């Protein structure tokens, strides 16, 4: 390309400067600062130097039962991920057919993902209204039409869940079995993500599956399902893997917006995920030190998960 190796340094500095300076001030600097703060008891209000407490915050975190509960909540909410990925795959298969106007359907299915945000969440609050919302109205009419003694769930007002997790302690009890706020948020999340970027990625990957593989399999007399299992699915493995890793990383950090808009972390803190906990510690109580410690623990967890996933994925998709 250009003449000498060093000769590009000056212009390179010029090009990269605006971005890099901002990067240093708002990304690199804060990351380092956050790591330092995690070892202090800083709360933004007291003037004066930072007080170091060593590993105090982390020890407190280990004993913090709330933290364990919120971690459970976060993991529970990730139930939706495999469902969402499977659904995206299904949709992609459906929309990869060579049909006239298939692009219109792709647009329609992508809408919930593209427009997701506070407005949609507020919409779902109303959909989930136990007395007046359309979801329960429909469910209740099914119950009465089928003459089944059933009662539509309370959704966002209920602390129940599919694992029977208890409210104040890390315990499981059948009393708490049912559909509650967490499940409501999971369902909404699946709806929002189904036709989204994952589906687009699968669509792209599907077009890249070589036709001859299908031909070969058909010649061997493979039926539709066998075609999928033996040709499509393995070819999509790298995409599936990529999507899983991204979803996992996202899943650990998720839940804040939904909790803040729909339930304020309730009922009884059941929809409080790790990110919501960090928010309430940092920006409602301004316990910056403790909140930073939590966010670094989150980072470590995500990194470990990603590395594990990478190792697994590399082994599998190596064929």
């Amino acid at each position, binding site marked *: 390309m250009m003449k000498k190796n060093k000769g590009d340094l000056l212009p390179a500095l010029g090009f990269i400067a605006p971005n890099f300076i901002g990067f240093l001030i708002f990304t690199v600097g804060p990351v380092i600062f956050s790591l330092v703060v995690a070892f202090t*008891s800083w709360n*933004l*209000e*007291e*003037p004066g130097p930072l007080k170091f*407490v060593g590993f*105090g915050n982390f020890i407190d975190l280990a004993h913090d039962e709330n933290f364990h509960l919120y971690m459970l909540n976060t993991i529970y909410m990730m139930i939706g991920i495999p469902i969402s990925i499977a659904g995206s795959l299904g949709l992609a298969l459906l929309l990869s057919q060579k049909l006239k106007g298939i692009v219109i359907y792709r647009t329609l299915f992508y809408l919930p993902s593209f427009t997701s945000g506070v407005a949609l969440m507020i919409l779902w609050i109303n959909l989930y209204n136990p007395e007046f919302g359309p979801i329960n109205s429909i469910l209740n009419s099914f119950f009465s039409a089928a003459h089944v003694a059933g009662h539509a769930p309370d959704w966002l007002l209920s602390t129940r869940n599919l694992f029977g997790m208890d409210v104040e302690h890390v315990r499981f009890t059948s009393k708490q079995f049912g559909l509650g706020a967490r499940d409501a948020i999971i369902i909404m999340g699946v709806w929002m993500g189904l036709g989204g970027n994952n589906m687009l990625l699968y669509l792209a990957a599907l077009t890249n599956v070589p036709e001859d593989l299908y031909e070969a399999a058909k010649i061997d007399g493979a039926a539709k399902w066998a075609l999928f299992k033996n040709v499509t699915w393995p070819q999509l493995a790298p995409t599936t893997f990529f999507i899983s890793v991204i979803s996992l990383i996202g899943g650990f950090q998720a839940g804040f917006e939904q909790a803040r808009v729909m339930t304020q972390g309730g009922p009884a803190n059941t929809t409080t995920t790790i990110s919501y906990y960090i928010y309430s510690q940092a920006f*409602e*109580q*301004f316990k910056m030190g403790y909140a930073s410690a939590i966010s670094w623990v989150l980072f470590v967890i995500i990194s470990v998960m990603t590395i594990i996933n990478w190792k697994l994925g590399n082994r599998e998709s190596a064929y």
Partner: protein
Amino acid sequence: MKQFILYTFLGLMALTVVAWALIPRRVVDGKVALTWTSDDNPARRGQITLFNQEHPKLKLTLDPDNSDMEKVIVQSIAGVGPDLFDSYDPLQLTAYVKSGIAWDITDELKKRGIDVNKTVWDVTKPDIELDGRVYGCPTNASGNALWCNKDLFDKAGVPIPKGPWQWRQFIPVAKKLTVIDPTGRNSQYGILIDWTGDWEQFCRQWGGHLYSPNGTKCTLDSPQCVAAVQFMSDLVNKYKVAPSASEQETMATAGGWGSGTISLFEGGHFATAIGGRWWLCTMRTEPSLHLAACECPYQDVQVYMGGAKGTLINKNSPYREQALDFSLYELSKPYNDLINHQADAMGPVIKYCYSPEFMHDPSYPDEIYNDVWRDALKYSVQGQISPYMNPVEQNLITTAEIQLVESGDKTAAEAMHDAAAKINAEIQQNISRDPALKARYDREIEQGRP
């Protein structure tokens, strides 16, 4: 491509000018805009409108969304804090002063010849005064007395009592007002107490305290406190003039009134209830309720629980002189008359609580008992606070223990001992985490001032 970028940039600059022009200015048409962060009590609006009328050069608005103490402090540090904000207890006041955002107005008031100490009720002083310096003026003052359901008294032929009187004199009166219907259940009780709200008043009246004077130790396990809580239990089980927890629950659902104390009293099955004048804000909307009031009984010490709120001024506000006008307004007759009229508890200034407008408010001719409320303020104190304990944590512990006594699961002695033990453990944990706090704690103990 180059042109596109240029046009976009110019467009953005144009939008920026628009945005900048639309930013609300502090001074509009010669009027200075002031913000007061406080709770969204409907009475506030009347109080603010009156202030704006009296001060045409100022425009005060309420900001109900940012009234959290933490938010106020952080926003003030960032330069976007309010001009006026509220302090609900001495710990909040201390936090505000320590973080440097509360303005010390002692000298300003002196210049205007005002000595707040001589002007306002004692119960309000902890919220505005710290170490002899004044940081604001109180918004109101509240103290407990006994609400009486006049109809039930008339029906039983009992005259409305007049204080001062002690609990042992109260019992026979309450018994006359407790009625058991033919099925053996109570249709009426002599008194309704709010266990988790009133326990501290009982303790103080028996001579006990929540903390030692400087807050280093929780003294709920003292014989006085135990005796006081035992008496609350006796009201239910020995004298049977107050409902048990389950009986209270039944009354709540049966009457369809909801289970808040005020709602229960409005239901008409209680002859008396310990409460504050601010109950009128809700009770005035119940025309079927005929009320009277009398002094609340006491035991060894005539003391009643009360509360107050102070409005502090932001030291860093560029318009703090104007904000000071609001503090002065809180000491003025029109404001105090308004508070008394609204029944937002009572006005903070002592002399205006003796005004004829308060004694006989033409809008509420039946409220002839306001002297009772005023006199209660003379003996009212705020809940005790310790610098070594988070009041929210303390409240969680005492509420849990008191509820166990109320439901009969623990005796008064057991509960009080457990509460004191838990609180003292918390205190020790708090000082172990904070060296400065520990130093102060050790100093007080050493100098014999627990």
